[in-house]
């Protein structure tokens, strides 16, 4: 019953998507003769269909309806409520339902935004392209990756589901128990938050693509499409940034080795489009201000979307584990075909229209704001290219020669470190170089004092006991970037106060509101500098150790005394927890009582660690159990991560910068004939 309703939701959404594409393109072509009367119905159909599909899946999971194969294989009666709900995106088919829902909500937002504009041919065409993408997603959900397949045979003892039937109204059998989610995915509450956030960002990048394609289709040059595309990109970028950070946080809290980033293909899949979306947010500013880079902006938006599909293909088709499992998953070829269609279609359209939408004015001087942003774009695009290359290289070599080569963290780190510092340099100085052609004297005046502030920051970090070169370089840039932004705000506010005779604080607030995109960008830059410092610290100054202990034993580590009090076992409905209690002292002060655990889930033989962390401004004291014996003998991994909070603080600040730009711009979004942008980015 639930399966039938959910499946019908998917079908309704698919049919409505097709109708949306037809109506959208028609409204775009017909213009005033078409009053878009029919457009709301397909939009409504897509949204209702997607919502019904999601609610059905959740209902099946929460009601333990094991006649649905997805529920039987990814949930269990003993799974806690939160993880039952989160199981909806813990496996392939369900995660695509979430994908469809997010896309449907973006369709709705674009339609609402369009309804406020009166006649809007560009928006209608964009809705048409969104309809095409959502048609693809919902057809996949109805065919090769159907979450509402019913179970026709269970495994022995009525557990899970061994055989399925595609049509949800077929005769089905319901087992007595399901397998439960993958142990790693039911170990931390962030599992409920991280995937949806990431999806909003990832799927949100479809909207800029739709607007770019609409502009190409209608051969609209100019800034109209660009302003709308930039604002949609910014929204997607905020969520993508947050999603990536939450993923890092999850990894830090769950995986038990204190890492937050491993250059895993799944992580790379979200990072590649992030890099290009970041590049676009910058190059769009150059086009708005100086009318150059028009073609490049189209290419960037198309490439960003293509990378989201490529990333989905890499992580969802099973191709990354081995080239040879390629044909086993039916969704792989479907995604690959879709990627081909997207690339051929969009680049073909671009080739036909490029002469109509491209710009002729060139750059006057490379020592200018646009020059700095060009360097930023080159570095970001190169960064994205290197990540793609490193991710695909083993596949290419294996496909060509059959040999296996490994490309992992050492390669990415070695390339990412110089690229990142070059980017940070461009990021720091770039926003303070004037447009067109800069005179060195002007730039020097702007950066002279902030350079000293950077030195002061580095010396402060030395005094706090850090002497690693990368850390000090990052600290220097952090001080430099903060001082640059504060100085610019001060100078701007002082000039305005002198002119209008007002209060300097009031004028500073006014300056922030007048150009939110610029100042939001500055906040993001500060975040990136802090993040760089956090990464440099965790890569170079972290301390690691392993000890074996019996109850009553103690060890000293990184200035702390760790005393092993007692082991414990807790039987919970869905898992058995093996843990140990430790008292952590610094000097004579009891700092924390930590209980690292190993969780044994009913569905899996392998145990999953739950590390215990004591966080403070000095750093995180991180304990993870490596092994646990019934007599209480344990092996314990100990880590000391100095100032690791800089990583989270920096990354969240980066996202908040984008949010500031979006929020203030929204509140002051009255159409402005001549934009009062002083700084532009």
């Amino acid at each position, binding site marked *: 019953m639930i399966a039938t309703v959910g499946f019908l939701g998917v079908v309704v959404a698919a049919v409505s998507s097709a109708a949306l594409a037809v109506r959208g393109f028609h409204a775009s072509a017909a213009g005033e003769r078409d009053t878009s009367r029919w457009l709301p119905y397909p939009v409504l159909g897509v949204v209702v269909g997607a919502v019904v599909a999601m609610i059905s899946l959740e209902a099946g999971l929460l009601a333990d309806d094991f006649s649905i194969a997805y529920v039987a294989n990814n949930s269990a009666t003993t799974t806690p409520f939160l993880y039952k709900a989160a199981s909806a995106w813990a496996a392939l088919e369900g995660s695509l339902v979430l994908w469809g829902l997010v896309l449907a909500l973006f369709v709705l937002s674009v339609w609402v935004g369009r309804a406020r504009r009166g006649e809007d041919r560009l928006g209608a065409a964009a809705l048409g392209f969104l309809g095409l993408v959502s048609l693809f997603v919902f057809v996949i959900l109805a065919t090769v990756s159907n979450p509402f397949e019913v179970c026709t045979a269970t495994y022995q003892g009525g557990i899970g589901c061994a055989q399925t039937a595609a049509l949800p109204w077929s005769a089905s059998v319901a087992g007595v128990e399901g397998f439960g989610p993958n142990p790693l995915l039911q170990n931390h509450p962030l599992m409920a938050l991280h995937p949806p956030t990431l999806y909003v960002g990832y799927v949100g990048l479809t909207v800029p693509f739709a607007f770019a394609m609409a502009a190409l289709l209608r051969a609209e040059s100019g800034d109209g499409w660009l302003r709308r595309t930039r604002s949609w990109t910014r929204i997607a970028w905020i969520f993508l940034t947050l999603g990536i950070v939450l993923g890092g946080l999850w990894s830090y809290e769950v*995986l*038990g*080795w204190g890492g937050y980033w*491993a250059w*895993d*293909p799944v992580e790379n899949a979200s990072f590649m489009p992030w890099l290009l979306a970041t590049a676009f947010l910058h190059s769009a500013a150059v086009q708005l201000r100086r009318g150059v880079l028009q073609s490049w902006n189209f290419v960037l938006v198309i490439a960003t979307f293509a990378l989201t599909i490529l990333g989905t293909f890499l992580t969802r088709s099973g191709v*990354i*584990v081995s080239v040879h499992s390629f044909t086993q998953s039916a969704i792989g070829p479907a995604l690959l075909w879709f990627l081909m269609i997207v690339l051929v279609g969009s680049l073909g359209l671009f080739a036909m229209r490029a002469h109509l939408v491209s710009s002729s*004015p*060139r*750059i*006057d*001087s*490379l020592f200018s704001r646009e020059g700095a942003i*060009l*360097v930023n774009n*080159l570095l970001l*695009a*190169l960064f994205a*290219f290197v990540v793609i*290359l*490193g991710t695909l*290289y*083993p596949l290419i*070599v294996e496909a060509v*020669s059959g*040999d*296996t*080569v*490994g*490309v*992992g*963290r*050492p*390669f990415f780190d070695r*390339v990412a470190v110089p690229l990142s510092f070059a980017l940070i340099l461009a990021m720091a100085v770039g926003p303070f170089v004037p*447009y*067109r*052609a800069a005179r060195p004297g*002007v730039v020097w*005046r*702007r950066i002279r004092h902030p*350079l*000293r502030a950077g*030195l002061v920051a*580095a*010396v402060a970090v*030395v005094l706090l006991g*850090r*002497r*690693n*070169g990368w850390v*000090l370089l990052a600290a*220097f840039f952090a001080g430099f970037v903060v001082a640059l932004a504060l100085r610019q705000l001060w*100078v*701007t506010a002082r000039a305005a106060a002198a002119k209008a005779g007002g209060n300097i604080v009031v004028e500073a607030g006014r300056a922030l509101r007048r150009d939110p995109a610029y100042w939001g960008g500055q906040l993001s830059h500060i975040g990136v500098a802090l993040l760089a410092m956090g990464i440099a610290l965790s890569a170079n*100054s972290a301390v*690691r150790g392993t000890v074996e202990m019996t109850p009553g034993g103690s060890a000293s580590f990184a200035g702390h005394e760790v005393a092993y009090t007692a082991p414990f076992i807790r039987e919970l409905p869905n898992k058995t927890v093996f843990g140990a209690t430790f008292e952590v002292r610094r000097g004579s002060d009891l700092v924390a009582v930590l209980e690292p655990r190993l969780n044994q889930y009913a569905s899996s033989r392998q145990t999953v660690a739950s590390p215990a962390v004591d966080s403070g401004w000095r750093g995180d004291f991180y304990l993870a159990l*490596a092994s646990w014996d019934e007599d209480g003998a344990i092996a314990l991994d100990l880590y000391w991560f100095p100032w690791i909070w800089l990583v989270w603080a920096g990354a969240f600040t980066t996202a908040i910068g984008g949010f500031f730009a979006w929020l203030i711009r929204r509140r002051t979004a009255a159409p402005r004939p001549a934009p009062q942008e*002083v700084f532009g980015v």
Partner: protein
Amino acid sequence: MSEVLRRWLAGVCTVALAAVVVVAMIIGEDTAQDRVLALGTRIKCPVCQGESIAESPSETSTAMLSVVAEKVAAGESDGQIIEYFTDRYGSGILLDPPFRGRTLALWLTPLVALAGGVALILGLRRRRVTAPAAPDGESR
């Protein structure tokens, strides 16, 4: 205080600050570089997906990491230890692709792409239409 003296003092302060940072960098951090861990991050866990043996908690990884630890304790060089693993598992066991053979292109392609990009940007500038540079002031 005269302007000359003030500037001179500011310069001395800047140089002194820079000197502190440079000296600190030269002295470096005194955390003992964990060779076992450093080697571990270069070797792929054969039963995982793209994790190194230093990161994966699996039994295979733990066993391999303890082999690394034994060899480090026995005084073998990094090269010898890496060779031990590539002899047994093939070069696919390395997460750190060497700058030769099948992975040479991996290292060279980004450099070629960088050169191409730089050439593209320089080309953008050369074909410029000459326009008078705008006067730039402090407020822009």
